[in-house]
């Protein structure tokens, strides 16, 4: 595009020069200058009587569409709110999950005897009770000097208990 000095040197009333008309469309100062010399300059600059924009229709259309795209892109960016409902819903779901998980952790303490793991807990308790309530075969024996040995055997087999007592008669 020509400079303002070149425009003012070359401009003549009723001029149809495309370079001059292009310049006057983008420079307000030269448009004001040219309007004093030729009041119709503005009409001719935007297409004038032949309704063909300077530089051709394609260039004009490209220029217009470029402006439209720039403004559309600006609008798309501006209409995005910072916090959308979708984001807030996702955040709420995460908070709910963390709350439930934390509550379970604190209340249960990963204790396997809690109701959450009830079948396992029942088996565990039953086994402990069985061990706790096992009784010795010989609970009392009258002689204090005796040694009593219980041989731990399998629960299904016979259990052996030996009483070694010096006070027993030799001819048992």
């Amino acid at each position, binding site marked *: 595009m020509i400079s303002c000095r070149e425009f003012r040197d070359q401009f003549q009333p009723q001029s149809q020069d495309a370079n001059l008309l292009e310049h006057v469309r983008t420079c307000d100062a030269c448009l004001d200058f040219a309007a004093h010399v030729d009041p119709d300059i503005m009409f001719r600059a935007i297409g004038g009587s032949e309704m063909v924009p300077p530089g051709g229709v394609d260039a004009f259309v490209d220029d217009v569409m470029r402006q439209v795209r720039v403004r559309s892109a600006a609008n798309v960016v501006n209409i995005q709110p910072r916090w959308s409902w979708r984001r807030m819903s996702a955040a709420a779901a995460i908070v709910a999950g963390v709350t439930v998980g934390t509550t379970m952790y604190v209340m*249960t303490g990963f204790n396997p005897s*809690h109701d959450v793991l009830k079948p396992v807990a029942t088996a565990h308790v039953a086994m402990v*009770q069985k061990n706790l*309530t096992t009784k010795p*075969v010989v*609970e009392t024996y009258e002689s204090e000097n005796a040694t009593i040995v219980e041989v731990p*055997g399998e629960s299904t087999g*016979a259990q*052996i208990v030996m009483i070694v007592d010096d006070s027993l008669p030799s001819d048992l």
Partner: protein
Amino acid sequence: MKRRILLALAALAIMTGTAYADAADAGKALSVRTFQFKFKEADKAAAVIKALVSSEGSMAIQPSSNSLVVTDHADNLKAIANALSQYDAPARNVRLSVRLIGASRVDPSAVTATAEGLKDIAAELSMLRFNAFEKLGDSEVQGKEGEPGMIDLGTGYRAEFKFGEYDPASDTIKLNDFRLEKLQNDQLTPLYKASLNLKLGRTVIVGAQKPQGQRALMIVVIAKRS
């Protein structure tokens, strides 16, 4: 719509937390329950459930009403109630099958095959230091909890005892004052006296010997409900 979903999620989180808090409190809280006995004495029942009461639990006997007040966790109280319901029952019939065995240490060349009537316990007998076993006699006796019992083994040996109480927690019947005696010169000589706990359905072998003795006397007994 989205706002409703958000509110529903928040309410769900609060309700879930409250529910778990209630459940946890219920599991940790202590409860009190009174058990009154119809057939058994409360002080003996206390001994039966002693092993079942947790470290945080406690119990108090009320002799005037023959009852037991137990404080414990709800889960534990269920187990205690179950044990006491089995315990507070009319006197049970028990049957004892008894065999008497003489065991000795002999020269290995003189060892014979396992005697008839002892093959079911041959594996257990092989664990002992003796290598010759002789069945001296056998007998069966039936009785109720609290009744006296007597076993005559027919070869000069006799056992007297008293049927004790059945313990549901260990599934055992107690034989109180079990006295084994031997007839010598028309007189009964006491050999030993003990109290025995016999698990129902399980074979128990009770042997007696002197230290470094070459002979032992063994009683093989099985207690069963009858």
